[in-house]
């Protein structure tokens, strides 16, 4: 039903498909676009499932797997790379005990690699949901994760 409302808000226009998908994903508690929602969308918008899937899967911000509450996106582009992005990725991976694309068993964190976030001046950088973090070190990573965990624990 929510999908229907979102589509209505965007007048069911194909040109708004990305916006619609963004909203569907954001509304989902698990931060992803479910199969079911794609089928519903396909029917309402009269676009073949293959077309919607093909479009959505083209963009790296959309996920078809349930994800954690906090999506950690580690920039892997050259400006961060030369400032040590790989060690940051490893630090997070070690701290959360998950690999690229995986979600922690408590459903809190998902670890992703991303292309440039456009905050290269503070490299190495990551983005957790909509918040960016820069000048990172392995220690800082521990602090950030601990802080989120603490907030969630409350």
């Amino acid at each position, binding site marked *: 039903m929510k999908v229907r409302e979102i589509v209505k808000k965007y007048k069911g226009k194909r040109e708004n498909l*990305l916006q619609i998908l963004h909203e569907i994903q954001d509304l989902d508690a698990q931060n992803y676009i479910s199969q079911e929602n794609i089928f519903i969308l396909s029917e309402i918008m009269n676009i073949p499932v293959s077309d919607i899937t093909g479009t959505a899967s083209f963009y790296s911000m959309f996920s078809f797997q349930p994800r954690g509450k906090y999506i950690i996106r580690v920039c892997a*582009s*050259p400006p961060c790379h030369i400032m040590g992005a790989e060690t940051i990725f490893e630090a997070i991976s070690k701290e959360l005990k998950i690999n690229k694309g995986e979600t922690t068993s408590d459903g809190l964190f998902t670890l992703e690699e991303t292309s*440039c976030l*456009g905050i290269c*001046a*503070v490299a190495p950088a990551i983005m957790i949901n909509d918040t960016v973090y820069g000048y990172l070190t392995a220690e800082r990573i521990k602090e950030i994760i601990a802080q989120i965990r603490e907030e969630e624990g409350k």
Partner: protein
Amino acid sequence: MNDRSIAQILVGIDSNTVLSGARQIKTKLITELSRQGLSEEVKVIETGSIGPTNQGVVLGVFPGGELYANITEDEVEEFIQERFVKGRTYKKRLLAETLPEELRLQEYDSRKTQYYGRIVLDNCGRINPEDITEYIGVGGYEALGYVLKEKSPQEIISIVQDSGLRGRGGAGFPTGLKWSFTFREKRYPKYVICNADEGEPGTFKDRLIMEGDPHKIIEAMAIAGYAVEAETGYIYIRGEYKLSLERLQKAIAQAKEMGFLGNNIFGSDFNFDLQLKIGAGSYVCGEETALLSSLEGYRGEPRLKPPYPAQYGLKQQPTLINNVETLANIPAIILNGSQWFRHFGTENMPGTKVYTVLGHINRPGLIEVPIGITLREIIYDYAGGISSGKFKMAQIGGTAGDILPEQLLDVPLECQSLQELGHNLGSGALLIMNGTVSVADFLRSCMKFFVHESCGKCSVCRIGTSYLYEACDRLNRKEGYVDELKNMKDIATTLKLTAFCPLGQSVAQPVLSALKYFEEELKEGSNPNKKGKLPTREKSEGVFYYS
């Protein structure tokens, strides 16, 4: 503005400074001013990036115009005491004597360029981007009003053409010419699109422009709309730029309210409406035809050119697509004239360029400088030199840009001189690297990016980038095949010659330039005992031919 303040503190709030606690500093400033009874006299204004990055929280104080950096919450009280009670500069954190002086271009002073010789970034860090009256206060929307009352579309186009402005997105196509192509088409509706899908790694100039001066983009788009006879504009902004998005949303709402967008703008019969469209994570969408596909709600795959967007663009209608930085030049050009603009930069490429200078340098960040200055000048005069060790190489123009060695430090950063060497200026990212970076490892990270971002439509880019990544990875592990470098060169050359879109073609740039200037180092990654061919019959050596 009818407040009675005699001084203003500008707090640069952008995605970088927020990390250093800019919002907390802002709050602290306000509470502290109020505690010291200065709320009436000194106003705290939130603004976009003031310029220096990697300098913690940056404050600007007007009148006076000095800049302070790295201010902490604990220092706020002392700062206010010194600056506003005792009336002297707060020496401890003063930055103005280093950065702004260097950037000042006094010989070309004009109303629009008083502020450190900036054209594009003149308002960034000087006005509150969330308040339209401040933009108006510094001459905003004047250019729009002027053209609507005084100029015909053709006249605007010739002003832009005469100014010599070239696209700042990377390709450097003459902007006025592009406008004239769209103007020439007489099928309606037409569209104006601002390409704000800034995905080139190391480039974030557009983000800072949008965060710091969103109204300028809106004004420029309305002018462009009037010039090419379009009534609808879209800003296609990448999904990662949340703050830009917010500020633009606010700005558009304000502009609509004030009548700078909508119907009968400035009492003319020109109508212009503007919409924001959000991307969803795809580098290729920065290519203009891919952007169109994405804007229409499809996979962001490039389309065939010709036909060019000027003829068959969005929804197959005539469409003008300009980069954020390109558009940000327009109001100033309109107000000051094309000859004024030509004072800056070079004959072939007038104006200024916003660079993001990054990597192993002392002051990474954003600078706006006249086109044509050299890499050496930027590194040593603006960016404070190499932070540790010695300069090794620089990648100019983003990940799809060339990797230049030390011997090219003195080449002017300008289309023509670079093209003579087979290089491109690109998007404005300058990534400076010292000796700690290995070429193979760096190239590997570049190729990793392309493997992730190639759209996969054409065979060469799809498979070629993947091979190049694996080759660089092998070289980095010193397990490269015997013919690795030759193979890489063959693939890169083929990519340049045959890839579907300019982005695919540009993948060759870092590879070919690295092979050109750093062949010896890359060679070290090849292992003479490793052969990389798919199983084919070995040529036998013991066969004799009759001749």
